[in-house]
């Protein structure tokens, strides 16, 4: 009998405990709570670290200038360990426990796709800083982004390889566990074939792999003139490195997932003769960019990468929308965000289109002599 009592009591205590916890902390009247979920650790840790610095810089800047609607911004940050399931848990916690009014994140599409339905269901606006897979904003009308999308990125990469590098035979090595990589590979292939190019072979790997020699040997046998690796920097650097060991000296090309200092740190000299497109370049002479780079370097002692710039832009765009909405009501912020036009961001002038995506220019960088160099800017 005593056993039965214990069995019955335990869940009751548990539910009560959770109930008390979930009431959570109330945000003080003079603060607006904003949530951020980022990959501060894990396979794409530099994405989260940079994004977090960018957002933090925007928050400090706005608070020093008096805040938004006369209130200070309070940033709540959750680490998702570079895992989609953790991302879903992080936003749930931000919404139900911390009571945030809007959420910024994530860089990776697979994590944004996991979190977006939760934000949508709770009517909390979410701004992804760097998720380029088109499906992210299709999750609902509360989901926005400040970056370009993969069909555009794929098209630019196709044009770049075909017109600027003048190469016609491309092989693809994509990450089959990653929505971003699969999408980018597909859009590239469509555009590249339309231009008259040929995709000679396509192989797959999975995030976290370290041995790519078998795939690379197979790709090499198809005699490609360039190799597209639509993945993230950790794997991309290892792929290029192992490819060079197999005597594959052709250009390797990637998307914005390559944008990290770690790319050159891991890949070393092997990274020469590679190209990738991204959201911004610190060498852009535009005064908005130069001012941002200077401030960022002063605070963090390193140069900002594209993720830092996008984090900053996402936060600033959100503050601008809250100001224009004149309220912290989810629906009003959503309407203000949807009508953003020519917002002067560090990563270019941002206009939110009816699909809640940003229309903006794209930058191509080249790696030569162990350094990233500005190659060209392409307008939408």
């Amino acid at each position, binding site marked *: 009998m005593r056993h039965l009592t214990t069995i019955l009591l335990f869940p009751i205590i548990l539910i009560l405990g959770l109930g008390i916890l979930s009431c959570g902390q109330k945000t003080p009247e003079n603060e607006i709570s904003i949530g951020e979920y980022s990959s501060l*650790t*894990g*396979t794409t*840790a530099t994405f989260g670290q940079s994004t977090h610095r960018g957002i933090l810089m925007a928050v400090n800047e706005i608070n020093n200038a008096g805040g938004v609607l006369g209130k200070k911004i309070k940033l709540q940050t959750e680490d998702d*360990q570079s895992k989609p399931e953790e991302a879903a848990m992080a936003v749930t916690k931000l919404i139900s426990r911390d009571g945030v009014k809007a959420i910024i994140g994530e860089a990776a599409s697979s994590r944004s796709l996991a979190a977006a339905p939760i934000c949508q269901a709770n009517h909390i606006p979410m701004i992804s800083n760097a998720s380029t897979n088109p499906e992210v904003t299709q999750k609902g009308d509360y989901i926005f982004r400040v970056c370009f999308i993969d069909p555009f990125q794929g098209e630019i990469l196709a044009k770049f390889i075909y017109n600027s590098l003048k190469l016609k035979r491309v092989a693809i090595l994509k990450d*089959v566990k990653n929505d971003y990589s699969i999408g980018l590979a597909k859009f590239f292939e469509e555009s590249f074939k339309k231009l008259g190019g040929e995709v000679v072979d396509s*192989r*797959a*790997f*999975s995030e976290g*792999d*370290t*041995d790519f*020699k*078998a*795939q690379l*040997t*197979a790709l*090499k*046998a198809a005699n490609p003139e360039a190799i597209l690796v639509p993945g993230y920097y*950790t794997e991309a650097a*290892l792929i290029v*490195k192992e490819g060079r*060991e*197999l*005597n594959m000296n052709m250009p390797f090309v990637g998307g914005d997932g390559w944008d990290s200092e*770690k790319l050159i*740190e*891991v890949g*070393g000299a092997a990274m020469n003769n590679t190209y990738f497109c991204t959201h911004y370049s610190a060498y852009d002479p535009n005064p908005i960019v130069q001012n941002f780079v200077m401030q960022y370097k002063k605070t963090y002692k390193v140069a900002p990468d594209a993720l830092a710039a996008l984090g900053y832009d996402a936060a600033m765009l959100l503050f601008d929308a809250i100001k224009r909405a004149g309220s912290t009501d989810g629906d009003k912020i959503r309407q203000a965000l949807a009508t953003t036009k020519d917002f002067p961001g560090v990563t270019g002038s941002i206009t939110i289109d009816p699909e809640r995506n940003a229309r903006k220019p794209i930058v191509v960088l080249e790696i030569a002599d162990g350094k990233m160099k500005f190659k060209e800017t392409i307008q939408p």
Partner: protein
Amino acid sequence: MNELLQQVINGISLGSIYALIALGYTMIYGILRFINFAHGDVFMVGAFVGYYFAPIISKFFGGSPFANGLLVMAAAMIICAVLGVTIEKFAYKPLRSRPKLTVLITAIGMSLFLEFGGQLVFGPDPKLFPALMPSSAIVNTENLVISTNSLIVIITAFVLMILLRTIVYRTKIGAAMRAVSYNHYAASLMGININTVISFVFALGSSLAGAAAVLYSSVYPSINPLMGIFPGLKAFIAAVLGGIGNLYGAAIGGLIIGLVETFVTGYISSTYRDAISFSILILILLIKPSGIMGKFEAEKV
């Protein structure tokens, strides 16, 4: 044709690393009749030992890259051996008289402890393993490249395996190991100290995992605290495939798994690689549970 040859070389280089890890599984099984699931994580610790020791060794010894590489490997082997013996003393020895299942569950717990303890100590983000020696190509034609790296991996692995064979079949402690693997009770009646033998086996198996870790990380230089899980599982499959408890079996099983994985990735798709590896495990358990080299053992009733 050259593509095929290149894939064979890729496969043997991966397979010889699996073989080194598989030897640890198989030796411990041979002596204690249980699978040490923490073995893959000892491998991970070996990689981090290399990561932290490589800069120190090149700073204080400053010898040739080859000598430095050997010292880094020796450091990883020694520390892994100590770790292996410690794990046995604290986690497995107190449970030696308990059912095998208890020890197996403890091993899984140990594995999780090392993985997540590793995240706490080393940090969860991937780290770049330093290049121990410059990789250059020995054979370098248009379609076939054999780099010093893959050759060093293959040669070192084979030297270590021959060394292990010598220890097991030509030394006194090796004879003791074989005796204990036949029958604990009879061996102890013959004056063999079972505890010493078991500690020695753990030290030997773990040091091979440490060596494998340094080889693996110098070829695939991104390391993290969870890196031991998959090579560990693959090596386990290799050990079962070759016939668990059999040293030659582990070596052959490792090579087969390395080659199969490379061929599946190269000619079919990497998506099926892990699925096929685990299918091999299921098939071998269904068709010939004693493995390729294993002998059929009748259970005494």
